[in-house]
């Protein structure tokens, strides 16, 4: 049997026994027990499985673990010492969800957007987030939450 791969997820290193072509989503959920990242379509079309690899948003349902070389951040890795990430806080404050099944992917994509573009316009947000589906239709609240998070991150950075 081949030696286990090593994955760094949320700052912790894990030996992973699945085949290198196993999708990251499956390993996160079924092997590491990190179920915050969701299955929605299996074809990279809905964004529910979005994680950060390095600082890029990637569809974990499309990503073989053998190709993951940078650290992975999932929804479980955003909260630090009991403090929510500003994006999580903004989603919470504006209640930018209903059933919330898309929320992990939405939050991760938003974090990636704000890392690239600290002050996005509503049009830029819609453009960047186009690959994330919220079937409950909370899109306008998500746009508002991203803008609120941008403001609070700007304040924190000062």
């Amino acid at each position, binding site marked *: 049997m081949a030696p286990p791969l090593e994955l760094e997820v949320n700052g912790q290193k894990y030996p992973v026994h699945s085949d290198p072509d196993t999708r990251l989503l499956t390993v996160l959920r079924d092997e590491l027990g990190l179920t915050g990242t969701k299955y929605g379509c299996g074809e990279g079309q809905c964004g529910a499985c979005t994680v950060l690899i390095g600082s890029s948003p990637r569809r974990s349902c499309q990503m073989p673990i053998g190709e993951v070389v940078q650290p992975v951040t999932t929804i479980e890795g955003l909260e630090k010492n009991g403090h929510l990430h500003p994006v999580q806080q903004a989603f919470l404050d504006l209640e930018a969800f209903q*059933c919330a099944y898309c929320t992990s992917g939405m939050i991760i994509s938003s974090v990636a957007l704000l890392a690239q573009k600290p002050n996005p316009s509503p049009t830029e947000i819609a*453009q960047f987030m186009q690959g994330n*589906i919220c079937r409950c239709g909370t899109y306008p609240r998500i746009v508002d939450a991203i803008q609120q998070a941008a403001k609070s991150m700007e304040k924190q950075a000062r």
Partner: protein
Amino acid sequence: MSTVAKKFTHEPERYEFRERPIHHFTLHRRDFFKFFGAGIAVFALAKDSPATQESGGGRRNHSDELPKEITAWLHISEDGSVTAFTGKVEIGQNIRTSLAQSVADELRVPFESVRMVMGDTALTPFDMGTFGSRTTPTMAPQLRRVASAARDLLLQTAAKEWNTAPEKLVAANAKITDPVSGRSATYAELARGKTLAQNLPDEDPMTPASEWTIAGKSLPKVDARAFVTGRHQYTSDLRPAGLLHGKVLRPPSFGATMTSCDLSAAQKLPAAVVVHDGDFVAAAAPSESEAEEAVAAIRAQWKETPQPSSSELFPYLKQNVDTSEHSDLTQSGSIADGLARAAHRLDSTYTIAYIAHAPLEPRAAVAEWKDNKLTVWTGTQRPFATRDALADAFHLSNESVRVIVPDTGSAYGGKHTPDAALEAARLARAAGKPVKIVWTREEEFTWAYFRPAGVIEIKSGVAADGTLTAWEFHNYNSGAAGIGTPYTVANQHIEFHPVRSPLRQGSYRGLAATANHFARESHMNDLAHAANLDPLEFRLKNIADPRLRDVFQAAAKSFGWPAKKSRPGQGFGIGGGIEKGGYVATCAEISSDDYSGAIRVVRAVTAFECGAIVNPDGLRNQIMGANIMGLGGALFEAMTFDGGRITNARFSRYRVPRFRDVPDMEIILLDRKDIPSAGAGETPLVGLAPAIGNAIFDATGVRRTTLPLAPRT
């Protein structure tokens, strides 16, 4: 006026599953307190149940056995915490929060001290299901009455202990206080050491909406933090020890029957448990990929049968009226007379495609057997019906099956059927280990069920002054919800014709109200055009119900109706109606690209009135979401199928609304504290499609009579 409302707000819908007798409940009083701890409990009984009739209501339940027709209950424990029990389920519509608000409000306790136990067949009373926008109008008042009775019981308890009259005491902030003596006791103190159980009095007064303090406010969603941190566990996230993943072999096409099945290759895989039971063939294995591998190794032969395709759907529906089921018909006056008196007559046909619910969490279930008892966690809108289906399938008593519904990744009317639960349970029984089934997106798009497609034909007449004279309306297959016109017409013939549907079809958010409003409101616009009247003015002229008038006027005012066009391709439309006790009107602005024909919805204003509002922010979220979901069915969603196969069973081929599709949206809430609350999860979406269709007509002069209106957009 009230007859209009009465006629159309509680219309039976054949695609909802039918109501059945309340189920017997088997918990005994002593077991109840053993299980939930000492304290005070109050039970709501179904109307007309023998227990309420025999006891005359209001009296204590002296028998040891709890009444059999409990619909909700509430328990105040010795530490003062309040737990309310209901068989309803949380699927994103936010009732875990709104129901707790009603309980806290009526019981006079802080919102945070109320916990809702929902959708667990072992702990909650029977409920037929969470659908039809019934939670707010039926379950919230039941829980309120229960809370009110519990408050009375606490007042009586305190009065007895203090040797005074309950009327002289005040219940507030989880305390009973005697304003004269200044003495007070917390609910916790009063509940201590008690095992008091009471049935709900017949007519216990509830706090009127004008005096609500906790209900009526925008309180945040219960457990919201668990959702933004990924900690909430949906059914698909559960991982009990020893869990196997299951996969089901699906037929190649609808109507296909298995002629042979060779399991030998699959059975050679060491990790897999393979099951062949009747037409059910499936495998379970420690990993999803091993289960997939096992199913792929099954050699099955199928006999396929000819199936209609989506390109021939609408003629097919007209040709396949199911005469074995009787049609629904309401009739008054004479259509011939009405048409004879008309100055303008119109005759139009509208078509509505099948669409998918596409809940982002697909159907999922986890099943576990222990000592011949079965527990299934599953995202369903009908936990008790799922339990009954499991009990039937495995020849168990209902008491041997427990169904638990974790707060679910949406449903929209799509999670009524027990399929995933049955599949997981059958595999788990064979494997002797817990099994999880999570449908793939393709399975979800293919083997669930669809919103019914339909054909609607309307013949109408209008007098020279704009008064409607005749209204003949035939709906083939789509459904009877919202089929009655809210406009005053002396001569009506409104009929629903059941059809042998080529696809599996069922409930959907808004049901046929979307199709019926689309047809009716498109047609009303064309009648206004024929009579040379403004579409809003024409509607108001024919509306008797002031609540409907109010929402039309509120939407129009905020939208700036009638609006002036400022650029080519711009158009404005309006649509609305009454359904499930809610009143809605939507104004839309679209822009049409002359060259490509693409349609973009630029702006939408929706006014909604559902009586007294329980949680304004939650309601706004629902109305916004309903309109955005409705945008998909209005513009581009449609199932395509050929040879018994769905040909667009993926998000890359089935377009749903995304960020860039969202117009500028405004929501106007009309809060009527003088009217009992109606549900709001469905009706807000029915005005949008006709408003868009009418705006397209305004922009282009072309009437589009199909849903979706702009499939190539």
